[in-house]
């Protein structure tokens, strides 16, 4: 196992900077998810770690050794591709054994290692099958087995579960997490599924335009997003534009005291932090109600036409058209795109009423 560090790494395609310059260090055995919208440079970053793209600037180090100019076949990395990229003209065992054969291992050892890794991914006895005879989930596991059998120091995964259905994806990511922890393998994982990142990662790196917006543990990222972009990108967030005047937000719903400099700001509240109470005089009206089973999502509108989303427990399902009073358990503020440091002390549960 080894560390992976990218320092001042940069890449341009056709004169346009995809990644202007970025630093990222991944500790031994850590699982880091790269998360970001399309075109944010997450796949490019992963491919530079794997040697499939040459960085224009900066260095890639694995376990301290500079591998920046090393081709993929020489790097101690293994990649799992989004399309699985299994070789359809080979059997399952043939796919897994390919890299071992290149290393000229004795035949008996190849066989035992292929069997062991198939066992590890839960496909014991599938060696002789053709890859196209397998289901999507099984193919994905073969792709993972093919990467793991080479005992790489760094495992790279490029949206490996994108083509699987919801249930299978959830199961596969649990299995992957399980294997990754058992082997303690340093892993870099690209996804645009934020639930996947939140469920899997030790640390999530949110990218935007080739720059790191925030790199933190999933709970920190969700509960204390550092920027307006991260706050809006991870999960659902209600943003309420307002002005700060003499230490107080001037928003009609949440005229809360905030120790911030005067100027425009945005209040940010998660739907699950809002509580609704029926009140004929209430400031918001329910526009629509969507039942997600575990919770009910209410789409609210103020008299000014401002929209909010709020979670309600299924038993307290509001009716469309009903007027409501709002309270927020938690609220944060963003000024100039960044999270405002000053959090008023009294913004604790139930403390805020509209």
């Amino acid at each position: 196992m080894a560390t992976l560090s990218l320092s001042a790494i940069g890449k341009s395609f056709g004169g346009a900077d995809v990644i202007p310059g970025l630093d990222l260090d991944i500790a031994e055995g850590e699982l880091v998810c790269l998360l970001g919208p399309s075109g944010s440079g997450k796949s490019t970053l992963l491919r530079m770690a794997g040697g499939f793209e040459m960085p224009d600037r900066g260095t890639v180090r694995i376990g301290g050794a500079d591998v920046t100019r090393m081709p993929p076949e020489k790097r101690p990395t293994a990649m799992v591709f989004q399309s699985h990229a299994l070789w359809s003209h080979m059997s399952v065992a043939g796919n897994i054994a390919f890299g071992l054969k290149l290393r000229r291992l004795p035949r008996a050892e190849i066989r035992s290692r292929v069997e062991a890794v198939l066992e590890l991914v839960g496909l014991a006895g599938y060696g002789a099958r053709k890859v196209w005879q397998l289901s999507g989930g099984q193919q994905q596991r073969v792709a993972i087995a093919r990467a793991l059998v080479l005992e790489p120091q760094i495992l790279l995964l490029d949206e490996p579960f994108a083509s699987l259905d919801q249930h299978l994806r959830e199961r596969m990511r649990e299995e992957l997490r399980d294997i990754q922890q058992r082997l303690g393998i340093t892993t870099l994982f690209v996804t645009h599924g934020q639930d996947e990142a939140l469920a899997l990662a030790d640390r999530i790196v949110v990218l935007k335009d080739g720059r790191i917006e925030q790199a933190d543990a999933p709970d920190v990222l969700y509960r204390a997003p550092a920027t307006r972009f991260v706050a809006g990108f991870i999960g659902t967030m209600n943003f309420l534009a307002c002005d700060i005047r003499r230490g107080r937000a001037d928003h009609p719903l949440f005229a809360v005291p905030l120790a911030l400099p005067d100027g425009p700001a945005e209040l940010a509240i998660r739907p699950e932090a809002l509580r609704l109470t029926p009140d004929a005089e209430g400031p918001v009206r329910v526009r629509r109600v969507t039942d997600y089973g575990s919770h009910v999502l209410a789409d609210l509108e103020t008299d000014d036409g401002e929209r909010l989303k709020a979670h309600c427990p299924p038993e307290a399902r509001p009716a469309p058209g009903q007027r409501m009073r709002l309270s927020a358990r938690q609220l944060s503020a963003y000024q100039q795109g960044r999270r405002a440091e000053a959090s008023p002390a009294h913004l604790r549960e139930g403390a805020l009423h509209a």
Partner: protein
Amino acid sequence: MSRRTDWTGILLAAVLGLVIVVPLVVVAIWAFAEVWRYPSVLPQEFGLRFWNATLARPDVWAAMSMSLRLSVTVTALSALICLPAAYAFARLDFPGRNWLFLSFLASHAFPKFGLLVAIAGIFLNLGLISTFWGVVLIQLVGTLMMMIWIPVAAFQSVDRRMEEAARDAGAGPVRVFWSISLPQAAPTIFAALMLSFVGTFYETEGAWLIGAPEIRTMPVLMITFINNQIVVQYGAVLSVLLWVPSFFALLFTRRLVGSQSFAKGFGV
């Protein structure tokens, strides 16, 4: 489950069948006919007399062997030259790539006979006229376009991720080509090989112009047969003999391309 009968399809198949199959059947019947006079629908006498006569001739066997040797040599050389080139066209970006790629059309863009005469002039100076390798060279030119253009398409349709996965597993570029790209593109490349084999086998103008008088292939022999004596049966017997290689090629292609391992695409 009831399915509507596709009459247009059946009609089309029938017309095509009539146009393609009937002449072949007529030639096949002629090959086994000893007496067939107008207006009889079938020959009055069947027999193998012309077969015996044809197969007893040493020049027929010599021509058959010459044609096979030429076709195998030309196809093998063409594959050796064209497949790596096709891979380069499909995967690498180099200056003049598109111009070079289009230039392979050039040999088919001009009237072939004029080109052949010009080449024959050059070959005469080089002492290649009427030699085996002279004919190989001229027929090689004829296969170039097919053996570049078809495999380029085949290599381009190979999932790049598959090649990258092989690099990742530790294979160098040559190994990736040999173990991944080539097998993945195999069915299409095989079709190109078959086309160039059959095309070379039946190629007449080049073989005749460059090869005569020493090098006599089956089609060249057939022309001399037909020119010298208007006995339909000789021509028919040779025709049937000429079908043999393409018939086997067709069977072989069907087996390979139809087989499950290739028919089922993957990850695309």
